[in-house]
């Protein structure tokens, strides 16, 4: 990649897209997100404005940077391709930090710290720990780190598109469990009331989710980190978290 000077300009003097300087000059931070991932990134009532936990936090971050957040919605498949192609400056979509990703991208400080849970049917008594997943079938979204976790514990993993399909399979008795973010399940219960599902176990180590930048976009990453620190300090993060989850999941 072309060497960039510290103010984000390339050697030929033009501003490099996605650099902090370019973003500030344009006054717009372009954010890639799914828009179909409740409660993190979704549309109000399904048909209204884009909203959600991630959306609100990155909007607050953009405020701190003195720019407007502009959202581009696409599917998970395309979200990293979009970041690399310079279509977005940052991804805000509950991306968890893992080794493969840190090798390719830069992450902000985490803004969600939440354990993974095993969700099973109410009447299931076989599964009470992650070790019990061995030989069981779980439904996982291919793109989440929960897929890896279930696989590591010996589960037979069926890849589905998302939470809704995983739950459908679970309810239809076609899989034994699904592993996902605690928060996702809580939101689902909040919406559906009695779901006939329960949490069978929780991970020891929480997963850390953060904003994603292209490798080497250090100025932007540092600016966002600083904004996150400020938002944490002034209680904004806790407030947003409380609004969605009734507790502070940001640390």
């Amino acid at each position, binding site marked *: 990649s072309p060497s960039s000077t510290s103010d984000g300009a390339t050697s030929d003097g033009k501003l490099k897209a996605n650099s902090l300087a370019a973003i500030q000059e344009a006054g717009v931070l372009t954010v890639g997100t799914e*828009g179909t991932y*409740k409660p993190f990134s979704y*549309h109000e009532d*399904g048909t209204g404005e884009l909203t959600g936990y991630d959306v609100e936090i990155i909007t607050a971050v953009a405020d701190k940077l003195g720019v407007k957040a502009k959202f581009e919605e696409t599917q998970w498949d395309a979200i990293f391709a979009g970041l690399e*192609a310079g*279509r977005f400056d940052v991804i805000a979509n509950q991306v968890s930090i893992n080794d493969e990703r840190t090798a390719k991208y830069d992450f902000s400080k985490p803004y969600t710290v939440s354990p993974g849970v095993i969700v099973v049917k109410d009447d299931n008594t076989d599964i009470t720990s992650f070790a019990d997943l061995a030989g069981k079938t779980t439904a996982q979204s291919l793109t989440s780190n929960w897929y890896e976790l279930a696989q590591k514990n010996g589960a037979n993993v069926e890849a589905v598109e998302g939470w809704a399909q995983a739950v*459908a399979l679970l309810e239809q008795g076609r899989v034994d469990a699904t592993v996902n973010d605690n928060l996702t399940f809580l939101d*689902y219960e909040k*919406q559906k009331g009695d779901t006939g599902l329960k949490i069978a176990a929780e991970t020891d180590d929480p997963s850390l989710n953060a904003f994603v930048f292209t490798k080497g976009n250090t100025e932007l990453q540092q600016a966002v980190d600083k904004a996150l620190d400020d938002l944490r300090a002034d209680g904004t993060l806790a407030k947003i978290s409380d609004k969605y989850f009734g507790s502070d999941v940001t640390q």
Partner: protein
Amino acid sequence: MTESLWELLLRSLLPIVGGALTGTIPLALLSFALGLVIALGVALMRLSRIRVVSGLARGYISIIRGTPLLVQLFVIFYGLPSIGIIVDPWPSAIIAFSLNVGGYAAEVIRAAILSVPKGQWEAGYTIGMSRGQTLVRVILPQAARVSVPPLSNTFISLVKDTSLASLILVTELFRQAQQIAAFSQEFMALYIEAAVVYWVICLVLSSAQSVLEKRLDRYVAH
């Protein structure tokens, strides 16, 4: 949970139809129109006696039909920027879809041109027309007739394929359904609702096809 499934479906209809009107339909119409122009060019190249020209057309058709549309969209929208070409979502979608239609329709148009009896070319030549004049005034009007049914198949497929455009940031019918499904977790119901809207669009297209076929059939014995 406070709202019944029917209320949800009713409430969803407006945005889904809206997605059809502002996304699916203009995208499909525009791409189809451009695609036909490309297809005509490619079909004529494919019919050329110059090896290189017809080889190029063959290669184009083979790649377009042999690879998934999803990847074609991906390459144009997310791949081209790596060589410095950045195209906006709508133009990208239109480029990808019309190139795609161009590949499929080229074969239809080629077959239609070949289906016009050789005697029609000769009749054109013997009244003094050039190759181009004969093509435009004699052959294509007749080729149009036989190509309407297969082209309308291509069009109907295109209408449904436009749902892939959401991948490159274009909001259309299916994307709307997905959004509502994500919120309400009722993906099955909303997908069926979307399917019904697609079906209505395709029914309208099919009747347009019948009308067109009748019009083009007026000079043929029944």
